[in-house]
């Protein structure tokens, strides 16, 4: 009987240790998602500000600046801004701001993916290791790369 209890205790200890490790990993991932979300918001805002001075893009850029958060409205406003930038002769500042926004989105979605993979684990769902943290979601947006940059040889 003692052997059985020892075995049960052993298995429980292993599970508890793994759950604790996963919970800490998930906590780190959530904090990374939050940091990446702030970075994405900053870079999108910087892009809209750079675009607001460009002719023909101003109103779309202001719409993007007015849309807060990283929800559906923002996605649509930023996609519209991407398309507007694609149709204009963007200057160097806007090209750079646009590139940074695209990278920030890619890196934000990377951290979201990392977090979702762990959130889907059985042990996370069974023991509610995610706590009250909301499920992170991808930021979907149309992207443009204005005028393929190059040098003359």
């Amino acid at each position, binding site marked *: 009987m003692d052997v059985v209890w020892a075995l049960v205790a052993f298995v429980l200890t292993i599970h508890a240790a793994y759950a604790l490790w996963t919970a800490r990993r998930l906590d780190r991932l959530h904090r990374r998602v939050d940091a990446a979300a702030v970075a994405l918001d900053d870079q999108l805002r910087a892009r809209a500000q750079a675009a607001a001075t460009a002719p023909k893009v101003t109103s779309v850029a202001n719409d993007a600046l007015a849309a807060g958060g990283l929800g559906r409205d923002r996605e649509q406003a930023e996609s519209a801004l991407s398309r507007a930038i694609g149709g204009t002769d963007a200057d160097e500042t806007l090209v750079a701001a646009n590139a940074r926004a695209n990278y920030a989105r890619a890196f934000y979605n990377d951290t979201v993916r990392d977090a979702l*993979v762990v959130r889907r684990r059985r042990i996370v769902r069974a023991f509610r290791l995610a706590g009250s943290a909301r499920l992170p979601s991808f930021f979907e947006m149309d992207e443009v790369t204005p005028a393929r*940059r190059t040098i003359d040889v």
Partner: protein
Amino acid sequence: MRIGLVSPYPWDVPGGVVAHVRDLAETFVADGHEVSVITPVDDEDAVVPPYVVRAGRSVPVPFNGSVSRLAFGPVSATRVGRWIREGDFDVLHVHSPETLSLSLLAVFIARGPIVATFHAANPRSRVLAMMQSPLQVRLEKLSGRIAVSPAARKTIVEHLGADAVLIPNGVHVGKYAGADPLPGWPGTGGALAFVGRVDEPRKGLDVLLDAFARLRAERPALRLLVAGPGEHDDLPDGVTALGLVSEQDKARVYRSADVFVAPNTGGESFGIVLLEAMAAGTPIVASDLDAFRRVLDDGDGGLVGELATVGDAAALARACASLLDAPERRAALSAKGRDVVGQYDWSVVATEVMHVYETAIAGHHGGHVEAESDQAVAEAGRQILP
């Protein structure tokens, strides 16, 4: 900006990743940034640029079908920890952290804005498959991931379940465009050039030598210029082997040929030699590899050069002949190559990398790169022992 770069491979052994790190470092230095590169250096007497910090010698490890020389262990860990503390970097940029190397060690040890570039394309790596879960957890730390090619990106998506943005390898276009041909080259009898390790089967020199023999049957004056380290026993008449050449001479080699040949048989993630040939304005014949096809894409549905079936000497000879016999087509390809390669100039590529740094730094609210505690550094050194 203060930039810390980590190279996994020894500085004094020629290779694609080392060349990439060096060119990136020098481009940033020229732009006025403060750059420090930590790297293994095998030869204690080797002369290294002032921005290089030595992390000790490396040990040979079989990887990706060839032997890589890597450095890790407690001594390297201590040096990397000290380098990070003293460097006070705004961003840390590690190269190929998927190998058991200085780069992975730096990821273990550092905190803050860390960017990684993945170079390798290896569809079936047992090392990566084995390392998958422990690596995945460590690489979650990265603020930004870059792949140099779609093949490299595919490798990390499949092995690490992570994605990366694409920023290609760069080339100093001006250095190649302005180089003088070697004395007496290319001459009037036709000249081919090959650049790469001569004793590395994947580089395909033996296929080229077979094709060269076929071509020479009809063109007795045809010559072949071979530049790259390694021993080869029987080089036939008409072949000039230069061995390992300096960067300056390598640029001159490309300019010394009517046609540049890349007969590689596989394992190529990118194809930097093709960019160098394009920058030099030399028409290209290359193996029909995905990576090569992509670099040779002219953006208008055409190719900058001729492709030949991989490993097929007869096809390679036919492709070379079609260019050797058509000077106007060579001139057209040369012009097109110089047009296409402009987007790969280091000035363009490094700007993109800088945007990635800026994005990574923004995600840390201006926080610098820091080292974990001494205890964690020592632990990293032990953990990463093979």
